[in-house]
């Protein structure tokens, strides 16, 4: 039996100067780990609200209550009026909060994924990108039911529906790619500078205020647009706003949103892959 061994190709671990791993085998290995990612995400989901009475309902309830709080906040700042105007504001708040919750929660989970996956990293061998990817898959699991809730509300509130909604998945995919990019950037940052954990909640809070979540794109004063449009989420939100009003999204917004998304994604993936061999040492 031993005689068969030399004909097999060995796996070799060598010292290489820090840099990218060989990409083809890396992504082949990642591909074979699809089920693993899927199950890790499901496990997180199952375990998360295991001990609370209404359990996984929180996934929906949490952003819904948040939207309710922001609605109160808005009515205090500026009366929203009645009828169609109020309904439009409620609908906007709902989707805007749901999408932002997806981005910020996923980014936060992805950033922590390496620290939380310490045991796995130190004791098992797999492409480390599995961990932030799992956070994104889990984020999508959490997000999809909230979109369903949005459409129930939008229908009840008499919001317009149109074929432009076909563009919704495209914009959401763009946002997801950007979120993944941010996870890939922040996760290694968290390993090398643990302080990042403390800063991130404040970064997301500021990000919330400069993103058209509590207000609509059309409400932004003309003088502020040149500044706010540099927010990476601005073009995606502007496009989403058009889609949810049953208008086709402006190509300029889609192009800008994609540019941000792929920019973050490529910088993130290179930063991550270049550093991933060091994670086991640094954790």
């Amino acid at each position, binding site marked *: 039996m*031993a005689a068969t061994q030399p004909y097999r190709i060995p796996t070799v671990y060598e010292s290489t100067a820090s840099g990218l791993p060989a990409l083809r085998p890396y992504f082949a290995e990642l591909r*074979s780990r699809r089920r693993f990612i899927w199950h890790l995400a499901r496990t997180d989901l199952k375990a998360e609200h295991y001990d609370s009475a209404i359990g996984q309902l929180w996934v929906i309830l949490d952003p819904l209550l948040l939207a309710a709080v922001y609605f109160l906040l808005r009515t205090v700042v500026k009366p929203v009026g009645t009828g169609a105007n109020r309904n439009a504001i409620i609908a906007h708040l709902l989707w805007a909060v749901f999408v932002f919750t997806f981005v910020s929660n996923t980014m936060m989970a992805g950033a922590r994924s390496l620290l939380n996956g310490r045991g*796995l990293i130190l004791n098992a061998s797999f492409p480390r990108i599995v961990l932030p990817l799992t956070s994104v898959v889990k984020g999508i699991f959490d997000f999809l039911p909230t979109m369903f809730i949005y459409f129930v509300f939008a229908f009840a509130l008499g919001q317009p529906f149109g074929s432009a909604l076909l563009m919704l998945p495209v914009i959401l995919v763009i946002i997801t790619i950007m979120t993944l990019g941010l996870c890939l950037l922040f996760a290694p940052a968290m390993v090398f500078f643990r302080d990042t954990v403390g800063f991130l909640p404040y970064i997301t809070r500021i990000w919330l205020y400069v993103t058209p979540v509590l207000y609509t794109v059309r409400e932004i004063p003309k003088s502020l647009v040149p500044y706010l449009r540099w927010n990476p989420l601005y073009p995606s939100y502007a496009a989403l706003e058009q889609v949810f009003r049953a208008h086709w999204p402006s190509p300029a917004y889609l192009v800008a949103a994609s540019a941000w998304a792929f920019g973050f994604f490529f910088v993130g993936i290179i930063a991550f892959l270049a550093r991933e061999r060091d994670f086991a040492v640094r954790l």
Partner: protein
Amino acid sequence: MLSDSERAPAVYVDDVWVSFRVTREKNQTLKGTIAGLRDRSKRAMLIEALRGVSFQVPAGSVYGVIGRNGAGKSTLLRTIAGILPPTAGRVAVWGRVTPLLSLGVGFNRELTGRENILLGGLTAGLTAAEVYDRFDAVEQFAGLGDAIDFPMRTYSSGMFGRLAFSVAAHLQPEIMLIDEALAAGDAAFKQKSMEKIAELCEQEHCTVLIVSHGLEVVKALAEGCVWLDRGLVRMEGTADDVVSAYMDEEHIEATSATALEDV
């Protein structure tokens, strides 16, 4: 029996060095880094965990790794598993490496034992179908009875260890790395584990590397053995010779403490 040089290796370790910097502060922080820019020596010290280690493990054998705490045993296993990159040198492995470096890696305590078998198998790099094929064997070997359907947070550490070992031992290991992992579990289960390791080698041509302070176990199970001392290979040879030399040097008597204590 063929001599070592005539048998194909399953693991080949060639002049492997592993060194890393450890910070003295518990966690690396921004402040620490800025302060460290001024005084680098304060910031980190270089640990040379392995300093030019070479040996090979013939396929289908049990191989022991012994040495004091901090000799580099765990680092060596992590390097062979591809978890820690070597700083210099080269490791080649023929076959799938199943590390059992810590118990229940990938297990989630909120899930049932049954769900964790799948999760543990996927963590080890198997496909879901491969795991399902061996489900019954894992369950039976672990011998947890009805507890298999309870969340693992209700398990004792012994039960936890039994399931973890069962998963690792049944999911087609080709090269198994065991780091003191059998310390959990009662005497009967330890005995069962040892028999399973021997069976894997003989019947399925699995190669096992075992790090242990249980010297009698190494003597009983292993053919070859390497003795690490502060990152260097102190001695390599048959398990009997190496273990005896180690025990002489460390003035250890062959007592029960060296027997099944930490398999």
